[in-house]
């Protein structure tokens, strides 16, 4: 693993020139030694506190938005996976009638589209929103409300898109140039 504890007195930026004119010698001041005043943590908690109940809809902090995002993407993963199970039941034996051709076409169109567009990219983005600020030791993403907007746009749009399969409006021709029904 490591070769031993760091020598804290050593300058963290040895050998590097300054990019902005910031004096790297200032880094030697850390970690500081004087104890911190009382009440600082409580004040931070108060400022970063988030509403509960319906107020959760207005939250912009990356921990919450990231969690909502991961949960939503995982939900779509499960839904598209169920579609896949339906397809596999239909294909388990030849000439079955479990899913008629039209329905089958809709199933595979939605399975593919939901997996690629509502699960895969949003999931990696969601993991990024959750993890990146913590990995970089930033307090939040640079534009918290933008990430909230992005999540809700995705969630509402994705739900409507997926719901279309039940309401009678569903696309039927994912990626195929060849005739897909055999009569």
């Amino acid at each position: 693993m490591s070769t031993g504890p760091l020598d804290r007195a050593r300058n963290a930026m040895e050998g590097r020139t300054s990019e902005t004119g910031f004096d790297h010698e200032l880094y030697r001041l850390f970690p500081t030694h004087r104890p911190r005043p009382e009440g600082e943590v409580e004040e931070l908690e108060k400022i970063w506190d988030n509403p509960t109940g319906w107020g959760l809809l207005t939250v912009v902090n990356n921990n919450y938005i990231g969690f909502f995002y991961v949960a939503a993407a995982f939900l779509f993963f499960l839904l598209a996976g169920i579609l896949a199970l339906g397809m596999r039941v239909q294909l388990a034996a030849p000439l079955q009638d479990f899913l008629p051709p039209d329905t089958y076409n809709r199933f595979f169109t939605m399975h593919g589209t939901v997996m690629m567009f509502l699960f895969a990219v949003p999931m990696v983005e969601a993991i990024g929103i959750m993890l990146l600020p913590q990995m970089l030791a930033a307090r939040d993403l640079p534009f918290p409300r933008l990430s909230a907007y992005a999540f809700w746009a995705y969630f509402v749009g994705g739900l409507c898109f997926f719901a279309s399969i039940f309401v009678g409006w569903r696309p039927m021709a994912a990626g195929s140039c060849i005739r897909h029904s055999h009569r």
Partner: protein
Amino acid sequence: MRDYRNDIDWLTPTLALCVWAAHFLLLWAASIVFPDQPVARWIAAILTLPALGAMWWLCRRGDVTSWVSIPGLGITIAVVGILFSLLPAIVG
């Protein structure tokens, strides 16, 4: 824990990959502007020369002496990509 003193030259391999990208796009453009015509292959062959020239210039600019370094490896990947792209024009 090692001490990371040296700044790696990331611009050189990035520029090398940009040269690959430009070379690829121009070759492809020629192949659809002149579909199935020999002139497309000639364009490919001719464009490869300035592309490789740009690679050599990047080596000089970045003081790259060996391919066992990040800039060197980046340039190598780009050169392999460029030569591999040329192959269909010559052989295919």
